[in-house]
């Protein structure tokens, strides 16, 4: 028998977590997993969707503060996210169908810790951090230190993700997230890549590249970044960086693709992501989601 409490304050929620309850946000991973028989519903659930202040995007000169309960639909609709953090909008725009995007949250996406989640790579490239709260107190953790393996995080079982912090990128920065998909909606990334690139007069002054569904956790690829930084943003440099991203991948064989195919396609999606980030850094409009607008390129 599952028990359920709809928390109306953060204190109530973290007290329930301390007693062993599991949080439920939109339920699009947790309940669907139970329906598919992957994992039964936890014995005790605490709903976090009625807690005031967990839902919404605060946008300041320092960056974004995205509440854990913010839906993918709200992320995609936010004008600042679309303009300055386009890679994140590219990612949230791809999640499921409009029903999945209306109910699924950014907190649930990150805490579910799937190596194929879409928002992970762009948020990692933006050097994001998360705030975790528990009855013991509150701490900030770099997103890079959150995931420890497929479905696993370094957060304690009594900790609730409250918000994601995304530092504001410098001027002339562009970003993109591209995934390989077999259909346009209701899909999971076969492979994916995100890029955030800063330009100064045609030279790359900063670059971040991360890969999705290509390793047990989503991670940045320092070698790919190094092949861009300090040089001209030309086709040869982009191809070399994309190859480095593919070389760093450790994909698996599964029903959706073979490891070899994933590795080959990693170079393609990484190239598309880097090219799009560079175009956007130069002020070009590339439609969101970039996976669709770069399809076939």
């Amino acid at each position, binding site marked *: *028998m*599952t*028990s*359920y409490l*709809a928390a109306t304050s953060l204190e109530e929620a973290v007290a329930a977590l301390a007693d062993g309850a599991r949080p*439920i946000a939109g*339920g*699009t991973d947790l*309940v*669907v997993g139970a*329906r*598919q028989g992957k994992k039964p*519903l936890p014995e005790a*659930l605490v*709903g976090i*969707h*009625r807690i005031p202040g967990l839902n919404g995007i605060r946008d300041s000169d320092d960056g974004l503060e995205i509440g854990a309960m913010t*839906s993918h*639909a709200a992320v995609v609709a936010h004008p600042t996210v679309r303009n300055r953090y386009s890679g994140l909008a590219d990612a949230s725009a791809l999640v*499921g*169908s*409009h*029903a*999945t995007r*209306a*109910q699924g949250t950014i907190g649930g996406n990150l805490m579910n810790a799937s190596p194929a989640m879409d928002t992970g790579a762009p948020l990692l490239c933006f050097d994001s951090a998360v705030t975790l709260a528990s009855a013991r107190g509150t701490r900030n953790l770099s997103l890079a230190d959150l995931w420890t393996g497929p479905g696993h995080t370094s957060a304690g079982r009594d900790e609730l993700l409250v918000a994601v912090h995304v530092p504001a990128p410098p001027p002339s920065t562009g970003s993109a997230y591209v995934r390989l998909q077999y*259909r*346009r*909606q*209701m899909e999971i990334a076969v492979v994916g890549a995100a890029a955030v690139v800063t330009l100064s007069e045609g030279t790359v002054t900063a670059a971040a590249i991360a890969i999705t569904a290509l390793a047990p956790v989503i991670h940045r690829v320092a070698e790919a970044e190094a092949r861009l930084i300090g040089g001209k943003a030309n086709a040869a440099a982009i191809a070399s960086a994309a190859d480095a991203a593919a070389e760093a991948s450790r994909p698996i064989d599964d029903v959706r693709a073979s490891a070899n195919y994933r590795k080959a396609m990693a170079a393609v999606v990484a190239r598309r992501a880097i090219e799009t980030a560079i175009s956007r850094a130069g002020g070009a409009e590339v439609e969101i989601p970039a996976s669709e607008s770069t399809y076939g390129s």
Partner: protein
Amino acid sequence: MSVPASATLLHVVREQIGLTGSKEGCDDSECGACMMLLDGEPVNSCSYLAVQADGSAITTVEGLAPGDTLAPLQEAFLVAGGVQCGFCTPGMLISATRLLRDNPDPTTDEVRLELSGNLCRCTGYDGIVKAVMEVAARTAEKSAGD
């Protein structure tokens, strides 16, 4: 009303409340036959816990038009051949209602994309897309005439 914590919104609406318009197709969030509006936003109710909806407004296909009347979308589905067995129709109508609310003048491609969380095994989708486009065109005509 009291519901078990593990009961889905679809189960409670169909079995406890007795509104059987919404259908169970896949029971794991793939097909959209169970789609409802939760505070105005779409939800696959087979995969949403009823307890989570406590305090929210729910719209099912039964709520799209009063009594025995039909909403314009319902009528257009009938006329354009958007219904065959009808199993996908309640969810499809909910999905299309939300689509036209947020995007009253969609392109055909936008309609196909936005309805792609609703699977239909009968119609080949053409009649459905045609119905949505027709209602959109009529609404546009009306507002141009105002």
